[in-house]
């Protein structure tokens, strides 16, 4: 019990530190966004009038504050506190400079699309590669095993964006089976109607396929672990006890072989958003990655900062789930606090 509380508290601390580091980067960068915006507004005012009055300076600061959620003239510590307060209590990340919309809404709208394509691709890839890895281990040395070993080694050598470009060339440009970009068929109304759903599926097919092929390599790692596990003595005992083959395969071999790669799998969930920047760029898929990349190119710092915090929160959640469920997979290491420290 105390372990879980500790672990959750730790996650909150890490999250706050991440936001702090991001804030530091955001605020202390040479020619950071706040200064940039301020000088830009100042020069605009200066064009019309002669010198700035106190009221005008006040007005500029006001404008910068609404855009970035940071009051430029306040001491750094106070800026930090008010930013954190905005983020944590009011989910207020400021306003996007380019889009002129609240950052939270922009991101919240883009989020489901990213989750859709990346998690779907990853879940599909993980499930199938675990299954195939187990089968390969059980048929060790067969031509099925050898063939799939070669295939999954080859898929590991190809980066997902190269897969993306290749499937784009083949299925979209040459065969013209699938759309070349976008996330829905233009002219369809979002909602539960067939043309819209069909369009969404059609547009997601290539991105999902690319991340599926890229995530396929896990099969080999799982195969290796299964093979190693199958040589162990306790399995002979299990067979002597008359346990069914299925129970041995799933509860004994499967579970123990999963342990070493479990963290990697959970981290995979967390890292899907990193790859989405490139994937969404190639497929012109307007979701989180696309928004983040454009924010970078436009130097739209409030939006960029918001995207950073979103990414971090999701990654942390993935790791937390991995740690909290670790004890279920491997009871030996249950509760890091219970371990002796040497």
């Amino acid at each position, binding site marked *: 019990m105390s372990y879980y509380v*500790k672990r959750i508290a*730790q*996650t909150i*601390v*890490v*999250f706050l*530190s*991440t936001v702090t*580091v*991001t804030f530091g*980067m955001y605020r202390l*960068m*040479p020619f950071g966004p706040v200064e940039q915006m301020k000088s830009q507004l100042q020069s605009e005012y200066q064009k019309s009038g002669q010198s700035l009055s106190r009221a005008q300076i006040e007005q500029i600061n006001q404008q910068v504050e609404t855009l970035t959620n940071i009051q430029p003239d306040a001491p750094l510590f106070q800026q930090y506190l008010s930013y954190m307060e905005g983020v944590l209590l009011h989910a207020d990340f400021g306003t996007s400079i380019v889009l002129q919309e609240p950052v939270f809404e922009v991101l919240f709208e883009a989020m489901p699309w990213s989750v859709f394509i990346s998690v779907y691709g990853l879940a599909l890839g993980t499930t199938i590669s675990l299954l195939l890895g187990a089968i390969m281990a059980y048929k060790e040395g067969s031509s099925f095993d050898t063939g799939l070993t070669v295939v999954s*080694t080859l898929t*590991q*050598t*190809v*980066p997902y*964006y*190269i897969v993306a*470009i*290749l499937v*784009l*060339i083949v299925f979209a*440009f*040459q065969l013209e089976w699938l759309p070349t970009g976008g996330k829905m068929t233009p002219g369809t109304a979002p909602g539960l109607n067939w043309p819209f759903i069909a369009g969404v599926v059609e547009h997601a097919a290539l991105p999902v396929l690319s991340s599926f092929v890229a995530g396929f390599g896990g099969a080999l790692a799982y195969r290796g672990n299964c093979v190693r596990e199958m040589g162990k003595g306790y399995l002979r005992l299990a067979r002597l006890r008359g346990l069914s083959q299925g129970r041995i395969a799933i509860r004994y071999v499967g579970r123990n072989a999963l*342990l*070493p790669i*479990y*963290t*990697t799998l959970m*981290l995979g969930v*967390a*890292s899907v*958003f*990193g*790859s989405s*920047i*490139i994937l969404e*760029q190639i497929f012109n898929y307007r979701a989180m990655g696309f928004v*983040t*990349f454009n924010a*970078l190119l436009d130097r739209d710092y409030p939006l*960029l900062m918001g*995207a*950073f915090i979103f*990414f*971090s929160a999701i*990654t*942390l959640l993935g*790791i937390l789930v991995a740690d909290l469920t*670790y004890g279920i997979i*491997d009871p*030996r*290491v249950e509760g*890091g606090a219970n*371990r*002796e*420290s*040497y």
Partner: protein
Amino acid sequence: MSRTDSPANDTETDGGSPVEDDLFTRTSRVTDSSRTNRLRHALDAHVYAPLAVAVEDTRTLIGGTIVAGFVLMATVGVVLVEPPQTMEGPIFQQPFRTLEYPLGTGGLGKDLFAQVVHSAPSMLKMILAGALLSTGIGTLIGTVAGYKGGRLDTALMGFTDLVLTIPGLALIVVLAAIYRPEDPVLVGLILGIDNWPRLSRTIRSQVLSIREEAFTEASRIMGLSEATLLRKDVISNLMPYISINFANSARRIIFESVALYFLGILPFTTLNWGVMLNEAYENISLTDPTKLYVILVPMVAIIVLSLGFILASQGLDRVFNVQLRARHARTVASDEPKSEAGD
């Protein structure tokens, strides 16, 4: 050491027949080894045996050859092949037609083969810098955290989580945008920052299992020093894992750097396969099948090199396998006949 190592067994010094060699009558049989002997032994154990294991396996052989070829390309190749120049040849010369432009030329008439070769040095520097940094830090933090446990573990893993949660690619993009790293070594180091937390987390979870094993417990009870224990019991057991991860992080560095150059985020200061990919993607129409080779050339280069690293890493797994190595060593007698070597 086996019995055959000591010839003094046949006759005792008093001329009588030897006492039956059992546990209780046995005395020290370690022969005084001269320096050359020891050197030969060390060479055999650390150079010859690993090489023998490596050469025997086809995967290792291919992987090693690819990586060695790449290193040759980055060192000797750049001297032999002239640097690519704009309009040195015809535009869109198809590949495999002339010996002068073996891989053809792109839209600017630049020799694609020369571009591939002259990209190698910057790729090599990037890979080395990044993979060394991330494997080193990842192993160190993962081992210490997993083994020591307690507060140190919490602190180190907290730090790892912190770095891990800062979105790597986005962070790199921002860093690249501010500092515009031009030196490939610097690019590699920046990419390495993003790579180590994963490794240290996975290493830690491995160490968590190893620390519960009987042999570490035994060493602990024997009172071996912590450094020895970490080195001999923990790290040596993790060695295959670390070597695989070195190759994997080399692959990740290739993938990520190419992605960044492909997106046009890093400045195009050195020739690089990512730069080639970007130029091809921007300049040719993907609907024209006759020009697709321009984009395929850098792709093939990337894929072949990462194949080399993967195969080499699989081979390293076998090289670090103690039993396999012992079977190949000449100075270490083995329980199994040599003819059975290789599986």
